[in-house]
């Protein structure tokens, strides 16, 4: 690439976005003449202008219908592939609704954990890694609880096989549960842990409470990862999990933090920020649309994602989220809970400027879209 070419291309920097310029620079043959290059650039501008959305085009409504109409054809419920060892996933319309509503508690939180190069080739190693990150609770190690009313003690018998598998002994577990078990003496004998009162309280209730309390103590793994499933994907092994904890997983040294994802939009927003959340919305919705064999142009989904993320936080397409941001009182009132919006507007003395579509349809005025958008300005004599 000659310096002359770069100069010509860069002179269009105010007319074309950088990515287009970069593409032209890469694609253009090196021996092209300056005049031909200018012709190409004019052609690129024409193509770019042609692809642009015209003023007054109702992109929002077209986007909404373009996602909504295929939605009517979607299989309503989650379906399972019989016999395939996969984690259960919410798909179809419920999943799309979940994403667009920006729910904080999603039905089936999941992660796809990719590993860095040396760790992702060997099935055994991946399996071991998966077992390590799976959240282990104290409860899982227990084979028997016995509550003695006469001695006022609680005896917990542990599963020796499981302890050995995880290279743990009873003493290790005592350390972990100590903080939860204040007011008790903990002693261990082989695979048994004995709880005795420190004081002389005669309350059997306390022992019962402590039994329930220690069950949930985390012994190992990453918090929240309830199930792990190593699967082969192309040439490497990845770990699918049900339950998610993006923050802690990304901190693990073996994990490839560039590719590892969660399906929880809100979690991605908190850990990676709003741009990542926007991309996650697009990916998640597009994944569902594709899996149903439907054809929705990704730009429609991008637009919705943009609207949801425009304020810097993820807002759902609900009356508490995006819709509450609408400028028009009438438009808000026409979408769910009209009284609430009217009363609040009255309290604040809100003024509706009738700048958008819905309110103009309501009062039977031309909507400011398409032919209704341009006005004429003339000098009055």
């Amino acid at each position, binding site marked *: 690439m000659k310096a002359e070419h770069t100069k010509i291309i860069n002179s269009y920097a105010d007319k074309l976005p950088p990515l287009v310029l970069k593409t032209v620079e890469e694609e253009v043959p090196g021996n092209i003449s300056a005049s031909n290059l200018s012709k190409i650039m004019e052609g690129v501008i024409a193509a770019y202008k042609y692809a642009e959305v015209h003023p007054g085009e109702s992109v929002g409504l077209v986007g909404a219908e373009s996602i909504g109409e295929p939605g009517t054809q979607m299989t309503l419920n989650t379906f399972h592939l019989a016999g395939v060892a996969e984690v259960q996933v919410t798909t179809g319309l419920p999943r799309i609704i979940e994403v667009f509503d920006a729910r904080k508690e999603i039905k089936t939180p999941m992660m796809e954990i990719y590993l860095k190069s040396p760790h992702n080739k060997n099935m055994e190693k991946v399996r071991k890694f998966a077992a390590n990150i799976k959240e282990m609770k104290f409860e899982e190690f227990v084979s028997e609880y016995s509550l003695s009313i006469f001695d006022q003690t609680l005896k917990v018998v542990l599963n020796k096989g499981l302890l050995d598998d995880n290279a743990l002994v009873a003493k290790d577990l005592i350390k972990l549960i100590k903080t939860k078990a204040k007011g008790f003496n903990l002693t261990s004998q082989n695979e048994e842990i004995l709880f005795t009162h420190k004081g002389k309280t005669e309350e059997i209730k306390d022992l019962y409470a402590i039994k329930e309390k220690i069950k949930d103590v985390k012994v190992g793994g990453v918090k929240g990862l309830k199930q792990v499933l190593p699967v082969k994907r192309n040439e490497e092994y990845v770990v699918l999990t049900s339950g998610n904890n993006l923050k802690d997983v990304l901190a693990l040294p073996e994990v490839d933090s560039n590719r590892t994802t969660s399906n929880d939009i809100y979690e991605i927003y908190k850990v990676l920020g709003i741009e990542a959340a926007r991309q996650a919305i697009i990916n998640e919705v597009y994944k569902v649309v594709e899996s149903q064999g439907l054809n929705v142009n990704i730009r429609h989904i991008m637009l919705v994602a943009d609207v949801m993320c425009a304020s810097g936080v993820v807002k759902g397409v609900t009356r508490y989220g995006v819709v509450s941001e609408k400028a028009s009182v009438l438009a808000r009132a026409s979408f769910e809970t009209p009284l609430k919006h009217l009363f609040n507007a009255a309290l604040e003395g809100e003024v509706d400027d009738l700048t958008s579509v819905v309110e103009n349809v309501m009062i*039977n005025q031309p909507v400011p879209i*398409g032919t*209704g958008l341009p006005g004429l300005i003339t000098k009055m004599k």
Partner: protein
Amino acid sequence: MADVYINSRFVGTVDDINLFVENIKDERRKGSLAEDVNVYTDIENNEVHVNCDGGRARRPLIIIKEGKSLLTERHLKQLKDGEITWADLVRQGVVEYLDAGEEENALVAYDETQLTEKHTHMEITPGSISGIATALVPFGNFNQSSRLIIGSKNQKQSLGFYAANYHIRLDMDTNLLHYPQFPLVKTKLHDVTNYDEHPAGQNMVVAIMCFDGYNMEDGVILNKSSVERGLARSTYFRPVSAEELRYSGGLIDEVSIPDKEVKGYRSEADYKFLEGDGIIYPEAKVCDGDVIIGRTSPPRFLSSLDEYNLSAAIRRESSVSLKHGEKGVADFVVITENEEGNKLVQVRLREERIPEIGDKFTSRHGQKGVTGILVPVQDIPFSANGITPDLIFTPHGISSRMTISHLLELIGGKVGALSGRFVDGTLFEAESELNMRAELLNLGFKEDGTETFYDGRTGKQMLAKIYVGNMYYLRLRHLVANKMQSRARGPIQLLTRQPTEGKAKEGGLRLGEMEKDVFIAHGASLLLKERFDSDKTNLPVCEKCGLVAVEDQYKNRKYCLMCGEDVNINYVEMSYAFKLLLDEIRSLGIYPKLNLENKY
């Protein structure tokens, strides 16, 4: 030890379940127990249920003993000769009725070839798996069950000869097919149910082909000349009635030609069909607006005070007339009394319904279609023999729906028509396809049912051989004449000032939410406004307070209810529905102020 329940009530225990149950069954078959007692053993819960109460669906089965049917050749012969009847078979313990419970303990064979030692019962016919309407579908066992269901549903909507005394009946909304026929391809159920006494369709010559696409997407093409000769013609009957109601104070409605003084008197022309008794004369041709039964009612709100007030004593007009779009011939007049002893006048209207574009037709296989065009005989394709089809059905309807029975009926009908006999298409017991094909070949036709066809318009031979034969087609009761409606101007609702909805009220078709979106998506903003202009109003609005003002056209003055007369009042164009919204918002205690500014 097992618990015994009679009609779900615990009565005691027995030691040997099998002995107990067998005893009951034997006693029932012998006749010492009533034949509607059924017994059911629940082995899992060690219970015996004896049921003899009402409401159990039961069905008859032939009893099998040691692998042999109790129904012998002798029985059959006796039945045929009329020596014994069905009731005798039940009494003799050859046939018994089982309910859903006892069926659980029975092992039922479909037919004699299946019988083993273990079987306890045998079906009377394998076709008893289906109901009556479904069994009327010929060759039904070649179809998907869903098509059978649709097929039997369609038959319920077909026009036919619904009652022999139709000419003295006053049923609401009935149709009568003019020349009903018994189907060429029948099932046993047609014989059993005396179908020849109330047939509901006609045998038509059907070709399966396309004809310029007028039968695409479930359409059918009719032969116009066949229709002119009376094919699928029917008559529609609808009664109109008026009652002489009694009101408090001894006042009563009166059926008569209203006097000219009567409140709400129409024009003289509207009463032209009425005879002296105020009722229309038979065979009068009426259309919308014409009065069928003249009637006057006593004045409303008549109190003692008004007795001297002459103007209030005028009776009201309450005649029964035809609504928008209705027409017909007065067919039959009945003057009678109803349950309350009031005089009741009923007039039956009749209207001939010749098949037209939009009328619905179906075969018996769930293959319904709407008439797309009526083709005159000179244009319709004809076979080498000169046969023209009455109806042309599309081949695209077959592949996705897989109604093999439709194809089989066509070939069966052809055999039946050519050999002059009825073809049996009973479920599971139908005549075999191979036999029908062989017979067709013997009759001098191609065995696959196809024939060479020529285009009636050009006379050119068609490239494909056309599958053609006779089929029993039904005309369904969804006639366009009853449903067609249009409106340019018309009545509006009082509250919203928007057009009324529904055919009866001469209503418009709603341009709904999603249709509105189409206008917006196209950016056709001003067109959208025009479409929604139906309730457009110009309202005076006070510039000061922004509320709807008052215009008094009598006194020719405008004033605001809040600010008085001393303000500027301007006219604002809006939808009346929005004005209602403003009123409702005000009723919430919210002040919706309109800030007026110049539009330009």
